[in-house]
């Protein structure tokens, strides 16, 4: 037992510095810190109870479940945002508006012109595919502006950011359809008999698909190469224009999935509020993951963990009864701390200090 412990300790010392240098260290450290804070402040944070919802189905509830549930959309968006950031060196700020469009399309496809339908016009899956196509088309539009017209991503997506929510309202003639079919609420809630929220499963599926795509295609290599050096990439036979465009289309797909969850949660839509400011959280997730917002190398897992760090932070603040108006201010303070801590200059200084503390004689020897 003790030998094993010593072994673990040795291993730990050996890998600690390499772990520190690993990109994934930052979001995981942030995650653990927040959890630790909650543990000390109120261990009740970790309590998960099995209850029954109004329909009589078993449901797990607790703050951790809230984090997993509500963080799902953000994690899905972080996937697309990471790719866009890597290839184009910029960010898409129209994500929230695009969710409004995709959600509105979904409702329009399901309800037609009747805002209180008794029966849905088509299976949800068909409506979802339509909204995917629409969201990808808008992603393609953004991608076109960025890749072919070489407009800075933030400026290019500012167009859709501004216009998106009115387009979304226009799709449903400014009406607010409400779906009464309880099955539609499964996607953002619970499937009867399964006590874990469905968004978590959707998110997990997206993450698995992304990991498989990154493993079995060259998407990762190509986007990074294009993001780092477009000219070299072209001379190595890549098509930088297409690759940048492709990342925006992929983000469009992520938007459609997030929109399905968001709309399903309400069984309705509010054009001006749905997914408001989610683009900033998605960008933040990428940054918290230690990915350079100027593009190039990326770490997908780090971005996804980053998304859950943000959700954990939001939920923690809610738990401590921070009024929702004041929430952004508190969030900003924590984010500043995280970002400063993860800045390369601070990290290298910290590494230096820890090295000095470990073996103070090293300077004299060298």
């Amino acid at each position, binding site marked *: 037992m003790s030998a094993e412990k010593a072994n673990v300790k040795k291993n730990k010392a050996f890998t600690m510095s390499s772990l520190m240098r690993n990109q994934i260290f930052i979001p995981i450290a942030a995650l653990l810190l927040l959890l630790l804070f909650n543990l000390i402040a109120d261990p009740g944070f970790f309590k998960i109870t099995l209850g029954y919802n109004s329909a009589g189905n078993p449901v797990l509830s607790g703050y951790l479940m809230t984090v997993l549930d509500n963080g799902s959309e953000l994690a899905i968006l972080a996937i697309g945002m990471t790719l866009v950031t890597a290839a184009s060196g910029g960010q898409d700020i129209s994500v929230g508006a695009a969710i409004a469009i995709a959600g509105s399309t979904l409702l329009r496809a399901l309800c037609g012109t009747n805002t209180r339908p008794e029966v849905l016009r088509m299976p949800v899956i068909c409506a979802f595919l339509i909204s995917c196509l629409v969201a990808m088309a808008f992603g393609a539009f953004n991608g076109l502006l960025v890749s072919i017209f070489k407009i800075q991503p933030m400026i290019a997506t500012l167009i859709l950011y501004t216009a998106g929510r009115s387009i979304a309202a226009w799709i449903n003639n400014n009406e607010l359809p409400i779906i009464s079919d309880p099955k539609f609420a499964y996607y953002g809630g619970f499937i009867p008999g399964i006590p874990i929220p469905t968004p978590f499963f959707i998110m997990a599926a997206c993450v698995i698909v992304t990991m498989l795509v990154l*493993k*079995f*295609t*060259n*998407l990762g*290599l*190509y986007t*990074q*190469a294009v993001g*780092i*050096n477009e*000219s*070299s*990439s*072209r*001379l*190595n*036979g*890549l*098509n930088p224009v297409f690759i940048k465009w492709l990342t925006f289309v992929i983000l469009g797909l992520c938007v459609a999935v997030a929109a399905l969850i968001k709309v399903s949660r309400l069984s309705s839509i509010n054009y001006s509020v749905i997914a408001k400011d989610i683009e900033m959280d998605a960008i933040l997730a990428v940054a918290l993951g230690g990915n350079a917002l100027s593009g*190039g*190398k990326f770490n997908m897992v780090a971005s996804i963990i980053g998304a859950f760090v943000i959700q954990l932070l939001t939920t923690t603040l809610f738990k401590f009864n921070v009024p929702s108006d004041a929430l952004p201010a508190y969030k900003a303070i924590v984010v500043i701390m995280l970002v400063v801590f993860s800045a390369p200059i601070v990290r290298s200084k910290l590494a230096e200090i820890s090295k000095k503390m470990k073996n103070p004689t090293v300077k004299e020897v*060298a």
Partner: protein
Amino acid sequence: MGNQALLSLKGIYKGFPGVKALQNVDFQLQSGEIHALMGENGAGKSTLIKVLTGVYTKDEGEIFLEGQEVSIRSPQDAQHLGISTVYQEITLCPNLSVAENMYIGRSDDMLQNWKKMNEGATKMLESLDIPAKATQQLGSCSIAVQQMVAIARAVDMDCKVLILDEPTSSLDDQEVQKLFKLMKELRGRGVGIIFVTHFLDQVYEVCDKITVLRDGKLVGEYEIKELPRLQLVSKMLGKELDDLSDIKSSDASGETAKQGEVLFEAEGLSSTEGIKPFDFYIRKGEVNGFTGLLGSGRSECVRAIFGADRVVSGSMKKNGKTIKINKPIDAMKNGIGYLPEDRKIDGIIGDLSVRENIILALQVMKGFFKPFTKAQANAFADEYIKTLSIKTASADTPIKSLSGGNQQKCILARWLLTHPDYLILDEPTRGIDVGTKVDIQKLVLKLASEGMSVTFISSETDEMLRTCSRMIVMRDRKVVGELTGEDLTQNKIMSTIAGGEAKS
């Protein structure tokens, strides 16, 4: 010399994780001398310069300036002490005017007297005979003039020590001459100049002394007259050199290649970069080259062949079959590889690892849905790291942290890995050390003897004479001649480049 050294470094040590970049290096510079700092890539030249300019802090050792010990912790410190550096890459702001560039970051006042600044700049430019106007935007000047402006800035700051780090690598001969004139002028004023370059000719043209470094250690300091070229090279390499000029003797295949079948030919090729339509062919196992002054269109010709620039006219044939090359991937699929002229801009993917950089081209050819496994990629990378003896900590090291010559070897590995039957090398030896240069030339001849066709472009004519069996001469973006066999001499090339219509 009775008087004290202007700058003197004693026992400098500098280490990086895993590397001892400098070990007990001494260096002395007198005022009014041009002192060459020579060594292979990785010998520690850049590290020494960076220690001197405060980019790195030394681990150990002392620096004396005019007899006083000084500590240099930042580039600002160095500047205040009168140590200025002009780097290979222009580090000024191209979107500002010449005068602004000369005065930027030097005033402590809140307000800037623009008129005075422009007047001061004009005076300085005139006194150094630099052909630029103070109000001109820097970006509109040629690279040489930009470099001179950078020097003028240094001079205007009353620098005592001027460090020129590879200033000539992107200049043509005339521009180099202008720069040398400026350097000699400054020497007359008592400035001590440290000159880092890979061009041996240039060292012997302007320098007074040479300090040679090898593997982070001082080899010695020599008066230029006491160190003939061959000895300099052998000191840099640390071994007696089998005469550089001998390497072609192993090239018996050069003759047989003449009878070989035509592998690739182009007719009336021209691109958007403004080269006049040209015809071109290369035989199997042949090494040929484009020569001409900088800007004569030699790079543009090969870029057109590879599809790097948009081709506007002409046709291409490979092995007798008509092929179409619109973009680089078309050329790659037809077995053509291209090592671009500018390694930093067009070659390396800086943040990616050595391994990823090596496999990139083959990976792209293999396709989006068929990534190599990590084991395969590692095997490829390790194979070429070994065969080309690339000096890197591991295959995972980002390529940008390698020295120039090793970066170039990685790019070379990238193309060799695709097993092309026609390889275009545009300035493969620029900015890299003598040892690697010889390695690359030998490699080219070896590849040719194995049946690969190679087009080799270099600014150094003697390099091309050593490797090419046929040279295509360019002037003003036009092919003006072709030389083979007996005609392959320095003189003949020069006279062809100059041509009948030469003005100067």
